[in-house]
């Protein structure tokens, strides 16, 4: 339908699946990072994300294929109440800020704190300072981002969705940090659970690692 490869083919049977969520202030380039990573494209006038968008992409690290199920969330603070629905149970997160805008860095820090409190304990978090191509207008020094990341044990990289710099590297670094054993279905690993009362007992639960 959409021309994308079917996700459940036998060729992908070995792929480990991980749920990854992108968080950060609006217009820092979350959707652009995903678009660059998944489709190799860049749109100057990338539309706003309302609610969230979902995309998948695989990478191979050390001979293991890792498939990311990526939830790209809306950046506006108001959509915050939806965020737990997407980061709950996520094994990885990329928190994005815009290096030309200080406020977005502060917002990124608050996301780190929130994930510390609310997300799975073993979540792998990467901090991405995006818009590296505009580094002449930089307001957040690379050392500052790097120091903060080190302090909180995060993967850190400055990226450019526009030029593609470091974009797939972020995902590869995350993939390296993720456990290389099949996460158990029906555990916290379940991709999406909105309403805890609902269909929780259903084995084929939403998006949990396709067994077929």
């Amino acid at each position, binding site marked *: *339908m*959409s021309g*994308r490869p*079917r*996700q*459940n083919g036998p060729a992908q049977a070995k792929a480990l699946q991980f749920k990854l969520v992108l968080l950060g202030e*609006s*217009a820092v380039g979350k959707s652009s990072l995903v678009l660059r990573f998944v489709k190799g494209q860049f749109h*100057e*006038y*990338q*539309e*706003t*994300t*309302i*609610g*969230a*968008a*979902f*995309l*998948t992409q695989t990478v191979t690290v050390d001979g293991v294929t890792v498939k990311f*199920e990526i939830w790209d969330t*809306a*950046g*506006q*603070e*108001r*959509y915050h*109440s*939806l965020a737990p*629905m997407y980061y709950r149970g996520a094994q990885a997160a990329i928190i994005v800020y815009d290096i*030309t805008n200080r*406020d977005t860095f502060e917002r990124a820090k608050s996301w780190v704190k929130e994930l510390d409190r609310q997300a799975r304990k073993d979540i792998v978090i990467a901090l991405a300072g995006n*818009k590296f*191509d*505009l580094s002449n*207008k930089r307001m957040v020094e690379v050392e500052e981002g790097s120091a903060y990341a080190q302090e909180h044990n995060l993967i850190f990289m400055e990226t450019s969705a*526009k030029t593609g710099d470091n974009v797939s590297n972020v995902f590869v670094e995350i993939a390296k940090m993720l456990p290389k054993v099949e996460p158990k279905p029906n555990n916290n690993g379940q*991709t*999406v*659970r*909105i*309403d805890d009362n*609902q*269909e929780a007992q*259903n084995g*084929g*639960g*939403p*998006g949990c690692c*396709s067994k*077929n």
Partner: protein
Amino acid sequence: MAPHGHDLVTGCFGVVPLHVAQHPHNCISNNGLPITHNSVRLIGRYADLSALSHPNICKYLDVIRGKGELVAVVQEYHDISLQQLISKRPPSNLPATSTKQIVFDITSGLHYLHSRGIVNRSVTLQNVLIERNTGTAKLSNFGFFYLTMGGKAVDFFVGDMALSAPEVLVSKISSTKCDIWSLAVVLLCLMNKGHLVNESSTFAGIIKILFGGQLSVREKCSQLSVQLQDQFVEFLEKSLVIKPSKRATAEQLLKLDIFSECKPGNHQDELYPFALSKAHLVTANDILDESELEEPLSRACTLVELYELWRMAGGDVLAELEKFGLVRGSIPICDLPLVVLPSGEIYKEHRDNILGQSQTLYPISPSLIVKRLAHVEPEVYFPLTLTKCKLAEGMQDMAQLPTVIKERNIEYQLHRIKLFTALLHGYPASIDLIRNEAMLDVPPLLRRYVWSALLEVKGDIDDYYNKIDKTQSLGAIDRQIDVDIPRCHQYNHFLSSPTGHEKLRRILKAWVIDHPDLTYWQGLDSLAAPFLVLHSGNEALAYASLKTFVRKYVNNFFLNDNSHVMTEYLWVFCQLVMFHDPELALHLQDMGFIPELYAIPWFLTMFTHVFPLQKIFYLWDTMLLGNSSFPMFLGAAVLIQVRETLLSYEFNECILLFSDMPDVDIDRVIKDAMRMYQITPMTLTYRKHSYHQQENELLPPKPPEGGAKYSYTFSKTFLSEHVASFPDTAELKEDSCGRIFIQDLAKLLRYQESVEKRGGTASSTIVVVDIRSQDVFDVGHLPDSLNVPISQDLVTPDGQPTSPQVHTLLRHRRKRDSLTVVVGPNEGATRKFCKMLMGLHFLHVARVHGGTSALSQAGMLCATS
């Protein structure tokens, strides 16, 4: 109306090709985005020009972007300019006009422009056109200076240097006053029957005399050998003044004694009574002139209508330019850069701008449409909306065809445009007629007004909008709006232009300030976009339409915390899908593919975030006819259109499918939504948090005539309690089956009965299933209801119905035209029974809110006779 007729042979509109300055390649602005092309900026600025209308200015009709920063500006055309009028051989058959009247006309036109903040700077003999029949003078090309951002977007001088005011030539300052100077020099030319000359006849020589501060008007005239007419001395003394601050304004000039006998031009604009103002008082123009009947196309159509029809008929402005040899088909290889520096700078062959410098208006003849509309009866142009309001024969079949076909048929469009114009002039009294006609289709030319009418926009909207202080700071919301606007429908030239951005920002800020209890959510920008694109020249009407739209369809979505509103909305949406396609709904539910994951952008932005504007226009043409729940039907129709795909998909595939909206057939979505809307009980989509303007949908039906079986009257108290007891979202979410109110059931039953009485068959059969045990049932029940006790199995192990009632019930399982209504004694039992019916993929199941106890309170139960 155009009382004097348009020239359909030579042309009544013309085009000016304009080559605007190109930016160097790869230029990037401060925010990292590419710099907007000058041609796009022009399109944005055009919006304000398009809204201008005055008897002494030529109407702007369109602006089109061609290749290589070519912009074609379409405007009203007349084949005689002031230049020709004063030439040695003036065209014959012109009504005699005095120089005085011409100067008055030009001054009036300038006054109108200046009052709207527009500097003309191109007041020249060529740019004043004369209407053949009346001799009225009209300013043409008056918008170039404004369009080109004060000449910044073009590489040439806008205007005629010989006529330019001193401050323009010396310090490049252009205010409205520079037009007054040019006007004065034009007057000198008029009196001189041609251009100004002096002994040396050089430009410098003339300028020297004109700018001579010590010379009186009379001295200047004599040095320029101008035959000064005494009547103009005062005019010139006030206008031919070196210092701009001392020069008179157009308004002051109009008050001079010389003009006391001049008549302002007659003119009627496409004004519709959305805002009540003096302009809507009937003028003499409204009275039909019999000559209009003779050549209705030329006399009873406005220029805007003619141009629209011409375009629909395949008229192509750029192709016309090519006919004049004005667009050179440049070979792509010529566009290759000559030199590319390592820094990325590119040097190309210099494009010559000679073509763009002349500002010549090339006439376009609408003869294309004349033949095709020659046989149209004159009555079509003057539809009688009160006595008969229906399509002429031959057009009725047309009305049933797909929209795209209808939009290309100019005869059909002519009918529709004329009919809607008449109806819109009668708004708001004509609202029901407008609604009826809009069910068929909406002519694109009038869509903006039809929408505003359907939304029932009224009141002094300009005043209302102007009173909102849009400059106040909104803190974080300002930042959010700023980052959202450059990403909102940027494929649309107008929305991607700085003017478009500015207007959208103002409208969004106005909305936030105007609604202290609501706030800005990302998505409101997309929602405002269709209104702004349609009303690009009328911000106040765009705003008023947005405001009423939001209140009706997405009211509480913009609360600071909208979670309860959204949850309720999406759950009722699930119930609606369950009602129409239980198999699909169950499949999605089982996968956990809940609307929270895909439908928030659908409903929060009423599809503007997922469909391009062209599709939104069609979608909303229909949506605006429905109630506040209609969008849910559109959503359900989208799901149902891709149902086979969804049924075969796993969770991940489903979510991917909707990450980019699949290519759905919008016509079909609209048709399916309409069909579902018509067979769904009104209250099935009731929501506590929706905007309840039309309380009457929840009011009791009128008392029936004569002893009908289902004649009930409900007290107001009972009804309001009944509605008030509608469950909260948490409880509502226990049910996959939607509920309807008791008065809705009564209405449906009575409707069915009345149809049957007349010997017809109702569009749907209503089966009321009472699930209480038989003994309780026998004590009192709704007449003709089926008793299928919940305690009893529906079928025997070998699949046979356990009772005749079950048999009847099962017959309705897959019937597209039946409605099964469950009434039960309590929540638990009703829920369980409904769930069983859903599991069997029963179509169209609803439960009665309040169950049998509500029926009993309402006095609807009676004992078995």
